[in-house]
């Protein structure tokens, strides 16, 4: 570990656990943090993008939370049972929970949220619900989910952002998207919505009637809207902002900011999502249709350089299709190390004739742009004729949706389980125009389809493991996409903000337990 920042992080993490144990939490205080970009709205379940999740995750709640090791722990569900055949899940709800408007939270809310609200509005919930045969409220505080067949990752699906509980009494029978309460979200969480000055700030205040005794400690949280990265950094420096969620400052600023006095850094709090950056390679046509070309690309890229220079040494250079946080990862595969010689050999072997290959950067800020430049230069140096196509988010979506690209940057969430976040990239029945999130590269392999499908419904886990091992071997050889980086997203905060990150979704629900040592 030659990287000073990485050292700092582990030291901070250590300090964090010890102090947390040593001190008693103090009540009061308001934390100022940042949301970037400004979210389109705050009704989680209706909108699932990152800025909405990070703010509204403190207003709304799900049935379960997950530790940083992705173990489920209670939230609105106090406990749960799984039947032996893996098809019936019974959730026992807390009894003293009230919505922010005072109405009690009941099993009917759960059934409405899952069966009506999410089925209509929420594509990621829909993906899980297709395995669900029925949802029933057996009494006021018990809900039973019956699956059509066993579904390994089912228990991982109840995170607040993905499977939000919404109030039935306000939404049932209405036009959800034009519901008058959308402007004033009502949840069960530790904080209540106070007001939103567009372009400036979103303010949350403490929910005094929160069911967990003593929580939250904070009086409120202000989410500032500052569109320029440089200004956000300045705001953190001069003390206006206490917490910088990951992705709100450019990576280049992080070493400087983290070296300031009284600043702590943590890389935790992203385990649930495990963002994984990949390079789409169009398997359908052009040089990228050739396996050897794709392998050459893997060998040509200096991913360690990118990790060290662009990502400040945070994150991991991945081995293969399964990230290190993913369950069932096979870590015995031979890594694609930086080896331009090997890349040139492969290109020669396939007879690459210098045909132009375009590269589409991810329009998410400077780091991604620089990364595309670095990859472009890496590829040029092994003799690939690369041209970068600049674009904005709209153009990026359009090109990927139309398969109009050769190489393209992206990153995807892994959601802990291969069946939730990984298989979608490689399954051939997931090939469809119009979405940048499915099998965009156009990889088709019947054996891979078979293995993934079997593994998703296999029971118990040992069976799944064997199936996933074979899949990983095939994918490793075929390189349907380039595996760039398991992204390390650091959260920066004043060290006197305590107990900030305590679950696998980090800040998305972090203020529940946070307190100020001031």
């Amino acid at each position, binding site marked *: 570990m030659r990287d000073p920042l990485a050292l700092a992080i582990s030291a901070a993490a250590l300090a964090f656990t010890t102090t947390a144990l040593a001190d008693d939490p103090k009540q009061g205080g308001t934390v100022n943090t940042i949301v970037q970009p400004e979210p389109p709205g705050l009704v989680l379940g209706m909108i699932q993008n990152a800025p909405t999740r990070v703010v509204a995750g403190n207003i709304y709640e799900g049935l379960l939370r997950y530790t940083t090791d992705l173990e489920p722990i209670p939230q609105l569900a106090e406990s749960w049972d799984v039947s032996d055949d893996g098809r019936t899940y019974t959730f026992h709800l807390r009894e003293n929970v009230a919505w922010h408007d005072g109405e009690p939270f009941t099993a009917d809310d759960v059934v409405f949220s899952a069966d009506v609200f999410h089925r209509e509005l929420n594509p990621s919930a829909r993906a899980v619900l297709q395995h669900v045969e029925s949802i029933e409220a057996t009494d006021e505080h018990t809900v039973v989910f019956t699956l059509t067949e066993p579904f390994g990752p089912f228990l991982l699906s109840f995170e607040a952002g993905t499977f939000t509980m919404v109030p039935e009494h306000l939404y049932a029978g209405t036009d959800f998207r034009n519901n008058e309460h959308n402007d004033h979200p009502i949840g069960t969480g530790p904080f209540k919505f106070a007001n939103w000055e567009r372009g400036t700030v979103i303010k949350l205040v403490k929910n005094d009637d929160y069911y967990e005794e003593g929580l939250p400690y904070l009086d409120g949280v202000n989410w500032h809207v*500052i569109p320029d990265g440089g200004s956000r950094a300045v705001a953190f420096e001069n003390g206006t902002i206490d917490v910088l969620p990951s992705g709100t400052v450019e990576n280049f600023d992080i070493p400087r900011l983290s070296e300031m006095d009284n600043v702590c850094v943590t890389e935790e709090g992203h385990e649930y999502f495990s963002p994984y950056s990949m390079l789409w390679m169009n398997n359908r046509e052009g040089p990228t249709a050739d396996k050897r070309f794709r392998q050459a690309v893997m060998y040509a890229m200096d991913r360690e350089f990118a990790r060290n220079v662009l990502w400040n040494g945070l994150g991991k250079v991945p081995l293969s299709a399964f990230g290190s946080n993913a369950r069932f990862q096979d870590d015995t595969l031979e890594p694609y190390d930086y080896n331009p010689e090997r890349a040139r050999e492969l290109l020669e072997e396939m007879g690459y004739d210098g045909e132009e290959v375009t590269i589409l950067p991810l329009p998410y800020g400077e780091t991604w742009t620089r990364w595309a430049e670095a990859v472009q230069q890496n590829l040029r140096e092994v003799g690939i004729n690369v041209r970068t196509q600049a674009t904005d988010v709209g153009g990026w979506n359009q090109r990927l949706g139309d398969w109009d690209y050769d190489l393209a940057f992206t990153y995807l969430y892994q959601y802990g389980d291969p069946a939730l976040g990984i298989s979608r990239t490689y399954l051939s029945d997931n090939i469809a125009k119009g979405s940048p999130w499915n099998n965009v590269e156009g990889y088709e392999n019947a054996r891979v389809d078979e293995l993934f499908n079997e593994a998703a419904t296999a029971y118990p886990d040992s069976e799944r493991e064997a199936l996933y091992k074979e899949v990983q071997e095939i994918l490793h050889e075929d390189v349907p996409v380039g595996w760039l980086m398991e992204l390390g997203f650091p959260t920066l905060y004043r060290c006197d903000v305590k107990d900030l990150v305590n679950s696998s979704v980090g800040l998305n629900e972090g203020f529940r337990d946070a307190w100020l040592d001031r």
Partner: protein
Amino acid sequence: MLYARLIIMRLFKAVIVLFLIVILNFLLIQLAPGDPAAILAGEAGAADQEFLNQLRERFGLDQPMYVQLWRYVSGIAMLDFGYSYRLGVPVFDLIMARLPATLLLTGTAFLISLVLGIIAGSMAAARVKKPSGSIIMALALVFYATPLFWVALMSVLVFSVYLDWLPAYGFYTVGAGYTGFALILDVAKHLILPATTLALFFMAIYTRMTRTSMLDAAQQDYVKTARAKGLKPSIIQRRHVLRNALLPIITLAGLQAGQMVGGAILTETVFAWPGIGRLMFEALQQRDYNLLLGIFFFSAALVIVFNIITDLVYRLADPRIKGAS
């Protein structure tokens, strides 16, 4: 009466121009790759076809283009600008919420640049061939040639980071809970850097223009007449030279004033000023057509309004064009 008729006539023309602008912009925006539904789906991090179809149907994007155009134009005719796709809020409300900040910023910058530019320009004109005059013009040229955003970045670095005199970003101190005079003071403090940055460039233009215009005016016969009366040079400069030299400035100022809404995108971005320019840039990135078109409509309307105001001011300043069109 004359003015009233003139204004009515100009407004009537303005309506037609605005109508054409709406149509042109509408068609222009359709050329952009990607649509709002895809972007919203993209932001959500996951989407299936059903989700996209739902969005497109809701926004009316599944209709043929002429139907969309007709709907939009007939909406505008009823002064209904529709809803922002991304934010789900009426476009009109969004614009009205952001407009004051933009007008405050650009209006201040406008006044600073106009007043200081005219003063500096007159000083330079009076000091032709003297070192002090040359220094003023050299400075003006440097301000003119420096990229605006660069000045913005550097001024944040110097005045906010190193000196810590002024806030680096934002409209007011969030969470400070100021009211009344304290709030005004707070906003004013936040205003200084962005307004000054924005003003520098235009100030340079006004300085150069005032000087040229004054040197031109000083050559005119009536200045000789004034001198023959035995008037003091200071009075001649102010009453005869400057007044006539200001006429072309009025035209330029009118043009600049009209561009106020869209002219501050860079400044608003760097200084996190919650204005229209930033909203526009975000709307563009999000393909939030309704919002973008609404902003275009408002900024075009503002341009037209300022054109009319400029005309009227010009008429007040120059008695010769009374009645002429």
